[in-house]
């Protein structure tokens, strides 16, 4: 890595814990010396490394070797034939970060980078503002690396996510408000205390971790960039970093420059980016979120402008889905492919279904859907909709009566 650079005005800054341009408050991004990287980062070299996100070491912003999250990433890319048939598309792949190590969401990728870099910069306390998955990941990875942690969440977050952060022993602070308010408080705290807030003052490093998802997709596809990628959007960061990873792969000669479109997905109850995209606007209007997809409930998405730009440049589309469609998406993925995704995953499936139905993703094409978190984290959202068990006494006769009833019911159907 070379420097931090403002995405708005281009001013450059040294590689410290800084996320904001002094001049216009534009976000800072890590810039790399690609010519130098190209010399050592070849397909063969990458293939010789262990199957973790750090396979793509040179494109991740730490100065030395990673010290946090060495086993993160390398999640499966599943060929989803049954789901493809159900959705009416020729070929479908699921990038399954629902099983990412250690906290079952893609956040482990960004946290590994942020905490490794925080250590390099001398921090001993790490923190974050979170809609859930990030809190889990920071709490877990901080515990594993002996760093002190403060995670800030909206106090009405799903129980499973709260327990999933508390268990690691760090400090979990519930804010009586929605995510954007949590974020604002964290910005104020970050300005006052010498803590590494992974998604505030460490954001430029943190965000780069998402690229590993895109790079893995390329490698697992046989060093090919997918023609269509569907990504859910909270801040919009993941979508922009997947695009960046595709562009970097082309720049480094790791994959051919083929036409590829990146599509965005949001929940209707919090859809500032998709609403703007569908109207052909370059800017979004902030909203107050109201959706079961709490991990995507960000009303003022800081990467919204850039996500819109990526969708425009790649000729991608976007759409949003209702709470019922989200639950339907979760069930569809589970029933067809045996993958239990959280509500954000339901959003991705639901939107992919709409985009294929409308022809925005052509039926004879191939698409990769990014699943970002595990269903065990948002059990509340599907608890009343997962179906029901049928109870019988421990009697063979009773069981056979049940089976017989099933057979006769199916015969009539």
């Amino acid at each position, binding site marked *: 890595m070379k420097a931090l650079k403002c995405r708005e005005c281009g001013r450059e800054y040294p590689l410290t814990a800084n996320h904001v341009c002094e001049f216009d408050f534009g976000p800072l991004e890590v810039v790399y010396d690609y010519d130098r990287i190209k010399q050592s980062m070849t397909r063969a070299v990458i293939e010789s490394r262990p199957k973790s996100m750090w396979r793509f070491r040179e494109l991740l912003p730490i100065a030395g070797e990673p010290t946090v999250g060495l086993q993160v990433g390398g999640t499966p890319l599943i060929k989803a034939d049954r789901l493809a048939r159900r959705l009416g598309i020729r070929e479908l792949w699921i990038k399954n970060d629902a099983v990412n190590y250690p906290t079952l969401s893609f956040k482990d990728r960004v946290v590994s980078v942020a905490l490794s870099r925080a250590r390099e910069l001398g921090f001993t306390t790490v923190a974050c503002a979170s809609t859930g998955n990030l809190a889990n990941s920071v709490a877990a990875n901080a515990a594993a690396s002996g760093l002190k942690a403060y995670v800030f969440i909206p106090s009405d977050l799903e129980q499973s996510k709260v327990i999933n952060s508390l268990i690691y022993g760090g400090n979990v602070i519930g804010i009586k408000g929605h*995510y954007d308010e949590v974020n604002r408080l964290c910005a104020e705290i970050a300005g006052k205390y010498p803590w590494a807030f992974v998604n505030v003052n460490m954001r430029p490093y943190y965000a780069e971790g998402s690229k590993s998802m895109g790079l893995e997709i390329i490698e697992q596809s046989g060093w090919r960039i997918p023609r269509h990628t569907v990504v859910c959007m909270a*801040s919009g960061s993941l979508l922009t970093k997947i695009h960046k990873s595709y562009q970097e792969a082309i720049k480094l000669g790791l994959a051919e420059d083929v036409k590829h479109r990146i599509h965005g997905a949001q929940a209707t109850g919090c859809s500032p980016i998709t609403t703007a995209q569908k109207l052909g606007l370059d800017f979004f209007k*902030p909203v107050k979120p109201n959706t079961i997809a709490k991990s995507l409930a960000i009303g003022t998405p800081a990467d919204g402008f850039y996500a819109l730009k990526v969708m425009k440049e790649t000729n991608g589309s976007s759409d949003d889905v209702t709470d019922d469609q989200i639950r339907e998406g979760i069930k569809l993925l589970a029933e067809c492919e045996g993958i239990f995704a959280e509500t954000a995953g339901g959003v991705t499936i639901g939107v992919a279904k709409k985009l294929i139905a409308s022809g925005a993703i052509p039926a004879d094409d191939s698409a990769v859907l990014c699943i970002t978190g595990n269903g065990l984290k948002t059990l509340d959202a599907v608890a009343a909709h997962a179906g029901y068990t049928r109870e019988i006494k421990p009697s063979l006769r009773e069981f056979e009566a049940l089976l017989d009833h099933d057979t006769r019911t199916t015969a009539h159907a």
Partner: protein
Amino acid sequence: MSVKIRIPTPLRKLTHDEEIVHVDAATVGAAIAELQSRYPGIQERLTDEAGGVRRFVNVYVNEEDIRFLQNQETSLKDGDEVSIIPAIAGG
């Protein structure tokens, strides 16, 4: 209207390291102009050439984003608290 303005860390160099500044202003726009007269250079950090608040700057009046109110026309009353926060992100 005497209001309290919270200055974010990146701008404190311009306000002699003051985190809280008190100004007399009837609207958010007037408050920004008042800040400019006291701390020259601060205005161009907050607003662009067209005069609108820069897209990565969030301004709140008593915790409400001015984009949900009347933007720079949002009126202020005695004791109101105006916070200027750089836009941030996901988790």
